[in-house]
């Protein structure tokens, strides 16, 4: 059935809105870079935000990292044991955690915890005119609220990813030690022997890109929130959904790029 003129109008309007949104996001990102590299720099606020993003996520990251390492090892053992290769467990786990699981899981957890918090916090500030109040008191709210938060999460995510990796390996070690009585030294010697510089590099690169994505998605949604409390909820929700979606897309692109140069 051919769409009627009203349906055509709605489709055309949706396409217009999509491209306008894309333009707004790129304007937001270009403003971020412009403001981030021009003085005055908000060092004190960046440190405060690093504490909020990094330190306050440690418990969650510790728990999920430990469980991921432990469960992944436990699930992988039967397959490797069936052809007598359970001694490869440390190598398998270290490669899986460093290359893929640590950056991906940490980024997803951070998108849920920090991205939604940013969306809701900035969204509520926007709808209650706190951002306007900041602007009329001669403070640049974009620099103070957005630049500091995006920089903080971009700086902290690589650290959280390394921490996740370490805790994940500890979880794996506990399982291996309980089953094979492997020593701490032997486990980590075997684990690190399989990891190359490129693995570490790709992990750090991913975490920087993911951190930036979570920060921009959260701040963009919050900073542009509308329509009262409904808008705040929508901003928080969209921040998480968009960040998670983009993280998977970026993961796919970076893996292709790293494999090409491997």
């Amino acid at each position, binding site marked *: 059935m051919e769409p009627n003129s009203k349906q055509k109008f709605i489709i055309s309007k949706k396409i217009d809105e999509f491209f306008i949104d894309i333009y707004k996001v790129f304007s937001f990102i270009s403003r971020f870079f412009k403001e981030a590299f021009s003085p005055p720099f908000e060092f004190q606020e960046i440190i405060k935000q690093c504490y909020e993003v990094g330190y306050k996520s440690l418990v969650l990251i510790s728990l999920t990292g430990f469980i991921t390492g432990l469960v992944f090892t436990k699930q992988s053992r039967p397959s490797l044991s069936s052809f007598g290769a359970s001694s490869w467990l440390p190598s398998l786990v270290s490669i899986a955690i460093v290359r893929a699981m640590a950056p991906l899981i940490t980024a997803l957890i951070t998108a849920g915890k920090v991205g939604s918090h940013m969306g809701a916090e900035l969204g509520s500030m926007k709808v209650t*005119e*706190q951002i*306007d*109040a900041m602007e*009329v008191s*001669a*403070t640049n709210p974009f620099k103070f609220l957005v630049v500091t938060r995006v920089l903080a999460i971009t700086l902290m995510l690589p650290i959280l990813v390394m921490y996740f990796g370490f805790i994940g390996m500890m979880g794996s070690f506990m399982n291996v030690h309980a089953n094979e009585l492997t020593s701490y030294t032997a486990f980590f010697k075997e684990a690190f022997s399989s990891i190359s510089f490129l693995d570490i590099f790709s992990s750090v690169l991913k975490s920087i890109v993911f951190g930036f994505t979570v920060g921009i998605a959260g701040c963009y949604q919050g900073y542009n929130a509308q329509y009262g409390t409904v808008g705040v909820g929508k901003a928080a929700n969209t921040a998480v959904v968009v960040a998670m979606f983009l993280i998977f897309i970026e993961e796919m692109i970076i893996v292709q790029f790293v494999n090409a140069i491997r």
Partner: protein
Amino acid sequence: MKNGVKIDRNNRVIFVKDLEKSFGELNVLSGLNMDLFKGENLVVMGRSGSGKSVLIKVISGLLKPDKGVVNVLGQEVDKISTEELQALRLKIGFSFQSSALYDSMTVRENLEFPLVRNLKNIKSKEVDKAIEEVLENVDLPQTINQLPSELSGGQKKRIGIARTLILKPEIMLYDEPTAGLDPITSVEINNLINEVQQKYNTSSLIITHDLTCAKLTGDRVAMIVDGNFLTQGSFDDVFNTNDERIRGFYNYNFINDNTNKKLNNFK
């Protein structure tokens, strides 16, 4: 002269000419002209959606005008650079309808924020002194360590005004200063607006639909209808009219006042 403050009719601190502002197909302001003189309290009244808040936001540079001239303290707000606008904003205080206090900060931090960010070399003793002084002026020194969520509506309004006063502005912009407050607290806020005019020698633009507020604080009242000033003058001049659009406004408030009186008698 009202409240003992001399109005300098030769010194316009705000000058608006042929101001137009639309949102999509909705014309909010259409060719509005306005003056605010040094030392004057100008009250702008009008129905909800008549463009009062848009006017105040255009004057403070939060919104850009589509057409017209908006001149504040000799500078056109939509034509100056971001740095110049920031410098100009130090001379303008904006009291928001919602108070717009920073939720995550205590009253002290709210008051400290504009001060330490704009006066880089200020010493901590000077900051403490300024905070104490401004809290004394709004009569709320006991709230210094409280969070905004622990304050009443009237206290929030007062702290919002205190936050703007800490930079000692030349112009005060009040957006619905008595909205959502009980009559007694409203009178207290009206008195505070007059005290601010006297102590800080400010010129004020007060946006409201509260007749009591207009009567108590305004040296001059302007009635905005369909995006333009229908009439302006003293409170009595404005409301001594047969224009239904103004009479209706007055009668509505009159009915409300009578209803309140009846309710009070009933109690």
